[in-house]
């Protein structure tokens, strides 16, 4: 697949934005400057970015408890994201949602729901609306490996398949649901086999390889746009951090983690860009510097904002 340089650089930019954002958030959390909880997307950047780069702004994603990365991949503003993590009125959700519910509707989101797989039906419903209104739009719910064992997941794939809805179901297999290995709670190892039960294509790609993900996503999105219905796209990666920042990880070997950390999708993409695709190293360094500055600005913006005024406590409960 031929990918324009500009697109390649934008992929790189978004991956770096995610990584830097997650590192900054983890850092804040560890220093007690963030409340709630932080589930990082580190090591999985290629999955979200590969998928979202295959989408248009008007296409929609549905997020999860681990959606900093999805939002940034779809184009969210770092400052308003960071402000939301800090519970500020200047955040995307005006401080009401926080890390687990962060969603930037302006860049194409249906919300980020922390109940595992509960975003699936939302995406199915949005896709139904697109189909009924003959709109050329696609809906993309993200879930994890563990999420594919929920009833929501099955019902959503079946309904979307039956109605040939424009959905791409992205299943990010990072091999764990909290402490539980997917292999301990599901008999099949290749989760894309489940697509057969719905009569839709099931595709499995290396989730550390942003171009592989991008290519598979592009095919699935084209299929959805063409009216041929949904695809199940499994991206195989790994969660290198704990389930949440500070989680003790008693259930796995450090060696296993180290092995996967070495597969860093950003480092890998960087060498490929430089080596195979002859991208100027300076361009990549510039991106990194630009992102670092953006993170600093985001932190400053977030710190500056104030928490919501208690007098507004009853806002947004009803429309």
């Amino acid at each position: 697949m031929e990918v324009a340089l500009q697109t390649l650089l934008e992929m790189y930019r978004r991956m770096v934005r995610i990584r830097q954002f997650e590192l900054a958030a983890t850092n804040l959390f560890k220093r007690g400057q963030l409340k709630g909880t932080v589930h990082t997307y580190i090591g999985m950047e290629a999955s979200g970015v590969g998928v979202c780069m295959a989408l248009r702004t008007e296409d929609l994603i549905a997020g999860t408890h681990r959606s900093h990365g999805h939002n940034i991949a779809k184009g969210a503003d770092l400052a308003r994201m960071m402000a939301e993590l800090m519970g500020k009125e200047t955040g995307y959700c005006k401080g009401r949602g926080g890390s687990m519910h962060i969603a930037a509707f302006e860049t194409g989101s249906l919300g980020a729901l922390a109940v595992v797989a509960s975003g699936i039906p939302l995406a199915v419903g949005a896709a139904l609306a697109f189909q009924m209104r003959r709109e050329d739009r696609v809906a993309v719910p993200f879930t994890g490996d563990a999420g594919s064992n929920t009833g929501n997941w099955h019902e959503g794939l079946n309904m979307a398949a039956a109605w040939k809805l424009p959905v791409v179901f992205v299943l990010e297999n990072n091999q764990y649901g909290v402490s539980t290995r997917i292999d301990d709670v599901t008999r099949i190892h290749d989760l894309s086999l489940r697509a057969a039960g719905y009569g839709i294509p099931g595709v499995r790609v290396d989730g550390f390889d942003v171009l592989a993900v991008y290519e598979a996503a592009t095919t699935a999105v084209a299929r959805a746009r063409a009216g041929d219905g949904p695809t199940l796209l499994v991206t195989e990666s790994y969660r290198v951090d704990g389930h949440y920042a500070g989680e003790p990880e008693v259930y796995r070997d450090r060696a296993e983690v180290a092995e996967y950390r070495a597969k860093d999708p950003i480092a890998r993409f960087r060498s490929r860009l430089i080596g195979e695709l002859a991208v100027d190293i300076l361009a990549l360094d510039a991106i990194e510097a630009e992102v670092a500055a953006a993170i600093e600005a985001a932190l400053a913006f977030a710190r500056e904002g104030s928490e919501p005024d208690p007098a507004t406590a009853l806002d947004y409960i009803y429309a």
Partner: protein
Amino acid sequence: MTAQARDATSLTSAVPVMSPDLIRQVDPGDGVREMSYQEAIREALREEMIGDPRVFLMGEDIGKHGGAFGVTRTLFDQFGGERVRNTPISENTIVGAATGAALVGMRPVAEIMFVDFSGLAMDQIATQAAKIRFMTGGQCSVPWVLRMPQGGGAGKSTAAQHSQSLEVWFASIPGLKVVLPSTPYDAKGLMKAAIRDDNPVVFLEHKLLYAFKGLVPDGDYELPLSRCDVKRVGDDVTVVASGYMVWHAMLAARILEAEGISVEVVDVRTVSPLDEETIGASARKTGRVVVVAEACRSYGPANEWAMVAIERAHDRLRAPIVRVAGRDSPIPFANSLENGVWPSTEDVVAAIRQVVGSPA
């Protein structure tokens, strides 16, 4: 005063002797027709679908079959399968898909065949739809309606998994509106308001009322969500009730009229958010309150109405509030047991007599 307390062999709850003229909300005349509660709901759906292309229906067997109670009958023929959409048996996803469609600008009217199956969908109803707007700081809204038949009685023997009244599950969750109409007039006007409302509205329909008739104006009218309706003005005692129980209250009021007891009936047709003002004002006026709900007594919805009466009228209350409610039991199949499980008109009469202090 509870269902348990009365003679369980009484048949009143099984015999709906209520006639439409017990509640007269519009005068007969041009542009007014008698129709059933079910027809009134259907008419509201039809008119809203004609008037707004964003409105569509989804649920199990709502197409040609017309739904378990025939409410959507004829709509499939008129609007086709795209807008009157049969779904797989996937309750949580029916609701969640309605939410997704609503988030992008549609106005879905989803149906769960019996409220009893909402246990499968509480996540999408209460944990997602009710909260998304708030959680996202007002970035979105969820303008859906979720229709669910509930309730039981009249010896129908639908047993434990097809007869419950579960409004408290929904009403205890902020972010939802909960409606439970008692008459055809209310059903039509509230359904229109519910569809036009920008919030998720849980629209409960009482199964025994589907066949009840009443006068309904042709064409468009909306009734406000979040207002109680004073179905009968009276001086001596306030009965707060909703759904099918309103009819027991009206009949009780008529029976006691002969004894010179003047009963005001407040219909909680929007269960949530609750119109505390109307309940409070009526309680202040009469000084005596009976609350009536079909749901199980313990932790039931009528408690809220009683608390509001206390909070708003305690200095005027001349007697302790009495509640009438369903038995704390799963719904039994056999008629001999089913008869006693729900409140009857006599229960309401007895409760009113108790608060006004007159002997039975």
